[in-house]
């Protein structure tokens, strides 16, 4: 197990290294300077490039960047004076993390409840509606939902704030926008795996042994039905806590998703690269974590033996 984790971590670092190298050279391959604006004079441009070390050969810049990276520094923003990428992450990530964890938690609980409900309900109508609902919400992109929520509850009804300010009310719309897709995803997954589990022999066996239906449903079946959920929850968690780019922009949430969008719009290369590396590292870690939890819960899974 420990060996496996070390191996996975090492693989993660290699992946990150490739990520760094590719993004670095891709951003440098493009001709032109990040400081180019219509009105800038060539002398000033040269002086700015020199200030940020962009006049050095690309290989030298790359080595410098790697050296900085090893010391934990992701570089300085080209477009915001005196702002390091580390600062941006330090300020933005807690906000993104909080929103992501809340919506992830809600998605797990609500999604599981709806999924089980779909499976155990005797009413075809209820199941039909729930299925239809989850199909609709799994197909609506988060940003569309975010805009609709903003227009309805912000602009029209004026009951909830459009601009995120950290108050409880301002969490409601973005969390909803972020949670709806995973709720639909979780409910469908739980529904299908729950149905599978219901048809297993051990259910009949347990019932035959005289264990109450409720106990079988919620203890025996649910436990097994949730296994696939753990597998998908790693990537899902990573997705939720690395920030929904668009939802953060729409609700003006000062998280890293919004920073990402801005840095792309402004062509702020160091910020784009720094955030890519950071997000990449989180995705790698989250996947590893979900694999480990999976192996712990399900003895049939042997890590590193597949």
């Amino acid at each position: 197990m420990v060996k496996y984790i070390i191996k996975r971590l090492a693989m993660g670092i290699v992946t990150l290294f490739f990520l760094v190298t590719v993004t670095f050279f891709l951003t440098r391959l493009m001709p032109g300077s990040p400081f180019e604006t219509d009105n800038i004079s060539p002398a000033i441009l040269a002086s700015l490039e020199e200030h940020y070390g962009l006049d050095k050969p690309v290989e030298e810049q790359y080595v410098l960047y790697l050296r900085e990276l090893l010391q934990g520094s992701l570089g300085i923003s080209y477009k915001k004076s005196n702002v390091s990428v580390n600062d941006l992450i330090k300020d933005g990530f807690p906000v993104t993390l909080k929103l992501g964890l809340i919506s992830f938690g809600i998605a797990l609980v609500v999604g599981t409840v709806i999924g089980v409900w779909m499976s155990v309900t005797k009413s075809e109508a209820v199941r039909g509606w729930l299925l239809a609902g989850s199909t609709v919400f799994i197909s609506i992109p988060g940003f569309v939902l975010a805009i609709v929520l903003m227009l309805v509850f912000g602009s029209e009804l004026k009951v909830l704030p459009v601009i995120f300010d950290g108050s409880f009310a301002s969490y409601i719309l973005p969390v909803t926008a972020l949670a709806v897709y995973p709720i639909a995803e979780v409910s469908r997954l739980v529904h299908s795996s729950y149905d599978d589990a219901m048809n297993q022999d051990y259910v009949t066996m347990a019932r035959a042994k005289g264990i109450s239906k409720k106990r079988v449903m919620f203890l025996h079946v649910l436990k097994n039905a949730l296994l696939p959920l753990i597998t998908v929850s790693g990537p899902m968690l990573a997705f939720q806590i690395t920030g929904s780019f668009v939802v953060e922009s729409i609700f003006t949430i000062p998280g890293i998703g919004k920073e990402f969008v801005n840095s792309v719009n402004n062509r702020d290369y160091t910020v784009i690269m720094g955030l890519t590396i950071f997000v990449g590292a989180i995705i790698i870690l989250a996947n590893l974590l979900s694999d480990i939890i999976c192996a712990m819960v399900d003895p049939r899974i042997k890590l590193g033996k597949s």
Partner: protein
Amino acid sequence: MRKIKELSKKLFAIGLSTVMLTSMAGCGSSSSSTQGNTDTSSGGAGSGSAEKVIVTADGELDGSLDPAGFALQSWNGFARLCSLPLISYDENGNVLYEAAESYEISDDQLTYTFHLREEAKWSDGSAVTAADFLNTIHRALDSETSGSVYADQLFVIEGAQEAYEGTGSMDAVQAIAEDDYTLVFHLAKPCAYFTKLLALPVYYPSKTGVAVSGTDWYKDPETCLCNGPYMLTEFVQDQYYTVEKNPYYFDADNVKIDKIINQTITDTQSVIAAYTSGEVDVASGLPDYIETQYADSDELYIWSMITTTAVMPNVNVEPLDNELVREAIALALDRSSICASMGTNYEPTYAWVPKYMTSNKGGGYFYDEVSHFSENAERAKELLAEAGYPEGEGFPTLTYTYPSNDKDAILAQAIQAQLKSVLNIDIQLEAQETEVYNTTKREGTFELLRYNWTADFTDPINYLALFTSDSALNFNGVSDEAYDEAIANSNNAATQEERNTYLHEAESILVDENFYIIPVSTMHYVGLRNPAITGVTYNDKGESNYRFADLTE
């Protein structure tokens, strides 16, 4: 034994998930404020409380608030609230005395002497002195630390260019504090538009000893001292900043607004939503459909940009080296239909100096003082035939290079279609990413290029000086003696009236006679403003100023 091991594994897993869940729950309940900015939701105009608060919204803004640093749009908005230059101009081009109460120009036009207001104070109560203006100038000229994109606009001062380039010392820069309240500029050569340059950040004051390059002084209200109507009280990078009435502003009695919050909202939809929900009072940079939607509303406000978009022909490339060909292209375009396809906020223009640039001699726009060329499809065909390409026969396919974005793509396609239908010539379109496009432009490796210039300062020379043969920003290889002479004459003119004549002569050579540049359109920004806000004034760039604004019920 095996069972115990399994059990412990399971317990660990359950424990881990519990920890995760509780951490989420914790997040849910403790909604500690991330920005503590409750005014945005409760504020807004006409709230009836004693405190008058305006919330404005801007998109993501680049740069810093240091006038000697990387000062771009963000500085511009901030400076209009919190900083006073020496003098400025109102929308009609009249001088407003700000930090200076008077100024004189020597007879040889080489020395400008500004007398500062002794009653002008920084927001900590200390005096604004000539040294504070030099603090910005010297820091901007220190190429090691400045990062200022406007440093070259200081080069009119004797010794400034040498100091920036490292060939001269900072002490030799002829911007001199004669005493605390007398600031003198000795210019390298006459510069009839020098007072217009004072609107640039590098000519604004920054407190000596406090505003130091390479530090974050402008993010901290303690060190970000202001000499304007408002002063910084809170700054949160990329989210918002708050300014409040500055009690030390020399005209503080006339400032009626207590607090202005500038909220950063990047998403256009969100800005509109925040405006409709009443969370912000002023929203700017909105899409053109807002103009139609709010056409009859007193909430709509329009900011006519001092900008020109043009087609730049490379005059060193065949057949664009032929004046007849350039003129044919200029006359063939139907600008009204081009602008109509781009949006209601675009309008045709027939001159290089923007439509809404105030005249150097004051009173009205430079554009309106003379007549310009006019479109004529028939004449365009004749011109092309005269050039040796009747009905476009034998005309090579030219490439039109433009930066890759929606509006410029529409413009490019419209130009392509019109030149095909009127002149029967083929234009190949090449969209490039902004940096690539800028490099193409700078290196002059284009045939036809979308060219746009937005005014740095409000004098026609800002546009006309670009095309002198020694200009570093002359990208299409214009080299015309008559033009250079007209510009030189304008710089040496004794009066602004005389200078005005030379400037028009220069523009006529540039556009109407030679079509070195083919003007197409200008644009305005669309904004929404709570009608309860009154008393908004405008500067010579048409930008709103909330200095004497008020909130009515």
